[in-house]
């Protein structure tokens, strides 16, 4: 019997590139530690406890920055994949989201979720940007989710109930409408994108007519079934008043007998004047509740009369809501947002998102895809110097994080980088006297920073390890995971090999996986 080749599939998982990157990072950190040790030796008079706390914050934030940047990039990648965006479009989206986040204080994550909705709805980049901006502002005003607001706007546009309206105007109307809507903007969104919105839109009603109606229904928690029956009954009003023989229909006759004119009602209906429609009924009833019931049944049928009566009974409030919306628009949004920003909560959110976006930018340094360190250095320093709030609250911690982040990339640039802060910045510590530490840290970040650093340092130090995997993921994005499968051993007798290759994605989403299949013919000569 001829010698048979074994039939074996060999699978090799090889993380050597990843390992190499990690080892490289280890070496860098070791070198960095060595350098700082030399520096610390020079400061023999100073102790280490408080300084450790400060730098603990630094390390934590440095790694936190990488974590944030990775999270942001990952979320952007998801949007890119799900909405089919190009790399350039994704980068632009990322920038505009950070800008909106900086202004409104809405987090990048929420904005990215909203961005996905806009792109999936088929909006262009410019329209999507306007919509996100308006949604973010509206969410601040109404204290609701930016995702819900975005859904509302998309729903309004899809249903064509906001014909000819600019996004800012439309959002202004939604915001104003939400003030009188039980359940707020979220309930308003649910109404607009649900059965009720669709049914009312079917009869050509606009946003400003639908919202007051929805608000009235929401007040008494009217079931959707009744509301849909009401909307269906609107079709009766616009039906022809005469049949094929030229005689008045039974519906028209019944209205006439009650003192209503179907033609006038239909005219109001066709022009979207629902208020006018109800005012005619109200006028004929003369304020008599039982007559209102009879009229409602006659006009809207027995199924639709329940919802109609809800409006007739609370007619004044309905009228007020309708009038309120008449003047609503972009101005409502702007003024509402300005007002909201005067409050401490939204202001703090803005500071937080500004800081977070700085961290995202800082973290990009730790991700291997970003190499433009010089431009970032300048903008970071400028931002920190010009932004009082940031400098006071996060001055030291941010600056320290910055140093650590930069150090892991370009250790030797620390001194020139620190010069950008315009001061002989220093972080030092005395063994027992924390006041000395404060005095030194104030030089870099102001008084609040010195105290803040001391207060938060220890806690954040504990979180260092928690964030380290994020750095690892950053490294993995470059290194990736490589594995190959070979079918059969390699032969020395020169027998030909058949090769089959597969390509796929590894977790980083950026590295190619090659599965290689080797095999050869048996000795039988095939």
């Amino acid at each position: 019997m001829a010698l048979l080749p074994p039939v074996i599939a060999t699978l090799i998982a090889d993380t050597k590139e990843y390992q190499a990157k990690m080892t490289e990072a280890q070496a860098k950190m070791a070198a960095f530690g060595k350098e700082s040790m030399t520096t610390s030796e020079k400061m023999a008079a100073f102790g280490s406890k408080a300084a450790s706390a400060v730098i603990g914050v630094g390390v934590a934030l440095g790694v936190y920055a990488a974590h944030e940047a990775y999270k942001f990039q990952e979320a952007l990648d998801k949007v890119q994949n799900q909405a089919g965006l190009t790399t350039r479009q994704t980068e632009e989206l990322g920038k505009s989201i950070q800008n909106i986040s900086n202004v409104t204080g809405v987090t990048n994550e929420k904005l990215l979720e909203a961005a996905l909705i806009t792109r999936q709805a088929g909006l262009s980049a410019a329209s999507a940007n306007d919509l996100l901006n308006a949604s973010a502002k509206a969410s601040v005003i109404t204290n609701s989710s930016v995702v819900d607001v975005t859904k509302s706007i998309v729903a309004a546009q899809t249903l064509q109930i906001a014909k000819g309206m600019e996004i800012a105007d439309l959002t202004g109307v939604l915001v104003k409408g939400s003030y009188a809507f039980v359940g707020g903007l979220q309930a308003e969104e649910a109404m607009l994108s649900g059965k009720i919105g669709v049914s009312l839109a079917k009869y050509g009603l606009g946003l400003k007519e639908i919202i007051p109606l929805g608000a009235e229904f929401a007040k008494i928690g009217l079931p959707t079934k009744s509301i849909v029956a009401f909307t269906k009954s609107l079709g009766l009003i616009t039906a022809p008043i005469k049949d094929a023989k030229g005689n008045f229909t039974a519906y028209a006759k019944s209205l006439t007998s009650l003192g209503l004119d179907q033609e006038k009602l239909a005219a109001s209906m066709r022009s979207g004047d629902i208020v006018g429609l109800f005012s005619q009924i109200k006028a004929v009833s003369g304020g008599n509740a039982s007559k209102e019931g009879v009229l409602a049944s006659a006009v809207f049928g027995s199924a639709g009369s329940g919802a109609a009566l809800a409006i007739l009974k609370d007619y004044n409030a309905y009228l007020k809501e309708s009038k309120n919306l008449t003047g609503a628009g972009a101005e409502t949004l702007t003024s509402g947002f300005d007002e909201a920003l005067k409050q401490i909560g939204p202001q703090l959110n803005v500071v937080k998102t500004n800081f977070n976006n700085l961290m995202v930018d800082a973290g990009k340094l730790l991700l291997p895809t970003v190499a433009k360190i010089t431009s970032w250095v300048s903008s970071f320093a400028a931002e920190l110097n010009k932004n009082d709030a940031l400098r006071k609250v996060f001055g030291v911690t941010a600056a320290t994080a910055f140093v650590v982040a930069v150090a892991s990339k370009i250790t030797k640039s620390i001194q020139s980088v620190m010069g950008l802060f315009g001061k002989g910045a220093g972080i030092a510590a005395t063994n027992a006297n924390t006041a000395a530490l404060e005095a030194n840290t104030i030089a870099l970040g102001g008084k609040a920073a010195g105290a803040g650093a001391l207060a938060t340092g220890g806690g954040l130090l504990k979180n260092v390890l928690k964030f380290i995997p994020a750095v690892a993921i950053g490294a993995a994005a470059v290194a990736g995971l490589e594995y190959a499968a070979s079918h059969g051993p390699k032969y020395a007798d020169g027998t030909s090999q058949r090769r089959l290759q597969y390509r796929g994605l590894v977790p980083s989403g950026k590295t190619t996986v090659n599965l290689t299949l080797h095999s050869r013919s048996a000795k039988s000569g095939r």
Partner: protein
Amino acid sequence: MAEIIISGISDFDKALKADIAKSDVAARNIVVKGAFVIERKAKEEFRARPSGSQRTSKSGRVYYQGAPKYPAVPPQPTQRTGNLRNSIKTQQIKSLGLGRWQSDTGPSVKYAGFVEYGTSRSREFPYLTPGLKNSSEEINLIAQEEWRKAQE
């Protein structure tokens, strides 16, 4: 002159080392689980034994009938006794160094190569080649999952 004191380097270093160790574990898990996938997929390549093709004589000996009544359906191999199919197993798992692992999967019967590659008298009935091909997607998913776990 700016003075910076850095601490926490050793913690950071430890974490990096731990991460390297975790990626080693991930590499091992990938090849181990991947080997099982290849084994399963290779076995799935076999056509089930045709009904009625297995007969037992009065003496108790079991016969398996082939063509013409129960012909093969090339290129898919047909299970007769099931020896070849049942012999497909993960044969070894070994480390090739830190972060590098290898697993070997295949049949152990002597005629395995004849079936897989064919002979001068018979065409090939590959089972490991398509089995491996069909495994790639699942192996990718395993790799992603293991990698994710390693990063947690």
